[in-house]
Structure formats: C-alpha cells, structure tokens
C-alpha cells in the first residue's frame, strides 16, 4: 500500500496497479473501515478500481497525521472474510428501437444478434466502482467475443438507461449524456435519482446481471418505474 498526495486537500491510498476483484475488495474494505473510524478532517472518500481517494480539510488535519492514521487503520483491518456478494438483475430490452448498434456490433464480431444477447446476458459482471456520470457502474467481466471499439464520432446525446459496449467494457448510461459507446439495448430502470435516499441504484463490490425482456414487458416496467413502484430483483449470495 502506498499513500501519495493529490494536491493539498486530497490523497490517494494505492494498492496493486491492476484491475481485479481481490485488489478492489481491499479498497472497499479500507473505505468501510475509515467510514467507521470517522477521523476528524476527512470530508469524503472515493473508492476506485485500485485506490481510495481521501478528501480532507487541511485546516483541520495534517497530511502526515492522516498518512499515519490510514496506515494504522489498514493494519488493524479484519482479515479478509469472504465478502458476501449480492446479484442485481437489471431488465434490458435488447435491439429493437433501443439498441441501434446491435446489428453492426453482431456482424463486426461474426455473431448473430441472438448470440450477442445470449453472451451479454449470461455473465455476472463485477461492479468495481461508480463514476464518469452520477450512478454509472464500471463493470468487469465482458465476454471477449463482444469486445468492440467505441464509435469514431461520439453521439451528442445518448439517453439514460442505454446499455452499451466500448472496447472491453460494458455499462449503462446513468443520465442523458454525450457518448461513443455501441448501444445494444436499454433498461427502463433509473440508475440515479437525486431525490432518493439512496441516489445510486447499484453498490460497488456486488454483481450485476442483465435480464433480457421483450418490448411489451419493458413498457410495463417503465410504467411501474414512473409510478415509483418498481424495484429490481436482488439475489443474496447463497440463494438459488
């Protein structure tokens, strides 16, 4: 573990420089441990793939003090227990009017559209972190056969809920934004709502699966989402 400054009001606690669930779990364990400790002067912490960024108030706490304190918290952390992982199920309508790039993506990868849907919806994706836009999940575990370069020219607007692929990554646009990902479908569920007690739908450290739904079902779910009645299926580890 290394601690380095990012400017005069933040520092980065860095673990191994790789994308792997085991390294990411250390980040989240330290994040939880610091949340419990609540050291004075820490404003907030942001977990990413392999590092925890700690934002602090230099009027309240010295860098050297925080540096030592974080080391101590890290050393005192419980031995890694098997973290229990939930699986979130996100309904997605693939293709149709929602996935304008799915046919091209299929032919570029020498697959049928059905095979793209089958491959994309049969993996469990590890949620490493949220970032890029509010509530956007960085996911690991996209099948190599689906890796596809991003669009040469990004679109000015991609609608929230759009499910896309860019290089080795898949993800869901959490708000309307410009973007260059290949869009293969859409979920009617919001990944971010500032009015909710828990504004982000997904929590890092857990798993996400995409569940194919037909257009009709998509519309039904969308209505239920708009009435504020829909919640996604979450399976706790150990359930079948």
């Amino acid at each position, binding site marked *: 573990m290394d601690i*380095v*400054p*990012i*400017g*005069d*009001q*933040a520092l*980065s606690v*860095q673990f191994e*420089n*790789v*994308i792997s669930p085991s390294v990411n779990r250390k980040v989240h364990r330290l*994040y939880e441990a610091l949340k419990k400790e609540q050291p004075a002067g820490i*404003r*907030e*912490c*942001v*977990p*990413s*793939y*392999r*590092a*925890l*960024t700690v*934002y602090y108030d*230099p*009027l309240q706490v010295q*860098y050297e003090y925080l540096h030592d304190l974080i080391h101590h918290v890290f050393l005192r952390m419980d031995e890694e227990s098997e973290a229990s992982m939930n699986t979130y199920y996100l309904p997605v309508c693939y293709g149709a009017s929602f996935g304008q790039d799915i046919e091209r993506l299929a032919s570029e990868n020498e697959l049928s559209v059905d095979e793209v849907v089958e491959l994309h919806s049969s993996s469990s994706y590890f949620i490493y*972190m*949220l*970032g*890029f*836009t*509010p*509530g*956007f999940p*960085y996911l690991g575990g996209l099948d190599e056969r689906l890796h596809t370069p991003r669009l040469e020219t990004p679109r000015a607007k991609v609608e929230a809920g759009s499910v896309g692929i860019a290089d080795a990554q898949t993800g869901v646009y*959490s*708000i309307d*934004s410009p973007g260059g990902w290949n869009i293969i479908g859409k979920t009617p569920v919001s990944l*971010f709502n*500032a009015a909710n007690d828990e*504004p*982000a739908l997904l929590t890092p450290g857990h798993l996400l699966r995409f569940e194919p739904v037909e257009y009709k079902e998509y519309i039904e779910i969308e209505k239920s989402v708009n009435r504020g009645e829909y919640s996604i299926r979450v399976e706790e580890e150990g359930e079948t």
Partner: protein
Amino acid sequence: MNKTPVCTVQKAGLFTTIQDTGRIGYQHLGVPASGAMDMYALQMGNALCGNDLSAAGLELTLMGPALTFHEETVIAVTGGNLQPQVNKEPIPMWATRKVYVGDELAFKGPAHGARAYLCVAGGLEVPMVLGSRSTYTKAGIGGMEGRELEGGDVLYRGTVHDGPRPFERRLPKASVPVYEKQQTLRVVAGPEFDTLTAEAGSRLLREAYVVTQEADRMGIRLEGPEVSFHHTGDIISDGVAFGTVQLASDGQPMILMADRQTTGGYARVLNVISADLSKAAQLQPNASVMFVQVTLEEAQIAFRQLHRSLEDVYFAVKNKKWR
C-alpha cells in the same frame, strides 16, 4: 424557512448559475463536487454581506445578467471584473452596496477575469439537493431546477443575520486578487508525475501554455509544447481533485475544475494548489499559464493564509467591528 423574493432575472447572461461551496459526500456515487469555480471570491462576497461563508450566490460568466430588485437589501459583487452597474452607474467590486426597490443591476462586460459572483445578504435560497445548493447542469441537479438561469426567474434569499445593515464595506486592496492575462499557477507534483520523462517533466514546469476555447466549469484545456511519457499516460480510472492537471495521450494538459468528473483515466501529473485555484477559475481563452512547483507544505501554508483573510473579514462583520 424564511424565503423572501429578492430579485427577478430580466436577462440571463451567458451562463449564470447558483453555486455554493460544493456538494460534499456524494463523489463516491459519481456525483461531481460542483460549487463556485472561484471559491475565494464567493466566500469573500458572503463574508462582506454577513453571510455564512458557504452560502449560495450567483456565478456569472463573462456576460453577466440583468436583475431587478424587489426589496431594499445589501449585495456584493466579487471575482472577475465584469463591470457591474446599478441603474447604469458603475459600482465598486469587492464591496457591499445597498440596493433599493426597482434598482437594476447589470454588467457592461469583462474587463479582467472570466467569472464574477453576486452575493446577497441572507444568501440565495433554493432547495438543497444532496446537501448543496450548487447547480450541476449536466445531471440537472441543484440551483434553479438544475439549470442555468433564464429571463423571468425569481430569486429568493434566506434569513439575514446581519442586524442593522451597513452602507458600504470595501475590501482593502491587499485582499483583492489580481487576475492576470499571463498567469503563474503554483502546483504540487501529482501521483503520475514520475511517469513523465525527466525532460518532459522539466518542460512542463518551464514552458508557457495557452488556454484554449475549451475552458468551462468542467475543466480548462491548455495547449503548448507536447509532453511525453516513459510508456503511456493512461491509467486505470482513478480519483481526481479540484485543480488536478491531467495529461491526455496527446500530451496536452487539462486543469480539472468545479464540475470535473469524479474519476478519470489520464495521468495526474500536477495539481494546482488550492490558494491559486481562483486564478485558474478566472482564466479566459488565449491567456497564458506557467506552472511553478512548490512543496505540499508551502501549498497548505498558502491556503491557510488565504483562509485567514476570509475569516478576518467574516468575524469583523459578524462582531460589528466593521460597519
């Protein structure tokens, strides 16, 4: 909640938003911190008006709005000099000013700097979203319904703490920042500074860079001598801070500002120190920038000094030592 209409927006200006000192505690969900670009200017405006330092004000960009007041109140305009006028008469910056019912505040245009702040006694009152009144337009949250101001908007203020209102308080010249067209920004080394070749590192700290047209609340893109890495500049997406200087694969730096995304995949080679972020916030396209390296300790001393000057004004006003 005390909520009094204070003024109506007649013309919106180029990009006018409600900002406070930022949205703290939601970056782990990917929600940008936002807040004033020039935090010192907003906070000093608040201090002069007798507000909490974190109260919300208006951030005005290059071309300010036109506002008509509905009540007698105290305002202060700080930050970049956009030439404020009340009823077409110039008013001083970095000073309180009493306005009356029907008075019109307008701006002639930028003389120095890029952004001014309008603070009103009592602070601007809009619903808190995720703990802040700051506007983040890209996600449509905070401020005035998540958007920039439009003609016809009515602004409300909160409770005035300041008792009998002073006629005019003017900040001593020594506390008024100077925003230059050729700006030196002090920096500390970032986590990936060492991925630069030795020559690239010293070039970055020696040469002048020019501010491009891409300079907004998210970041300021610079253009200058290309800087190269030992291997690649790209990193596994990681945390950034206000003032982080990223180096994209094209070798050109970008200073991340208030609406920066919470994480990024480019090398974080430098960080503008907090005490100089105001100067960065006031850069206009075509201005030139040079980076000068300081130590973390020097950076934090400079920040403490800046904060002390804010507190001096804040407490002088609060304790009625300055009328």
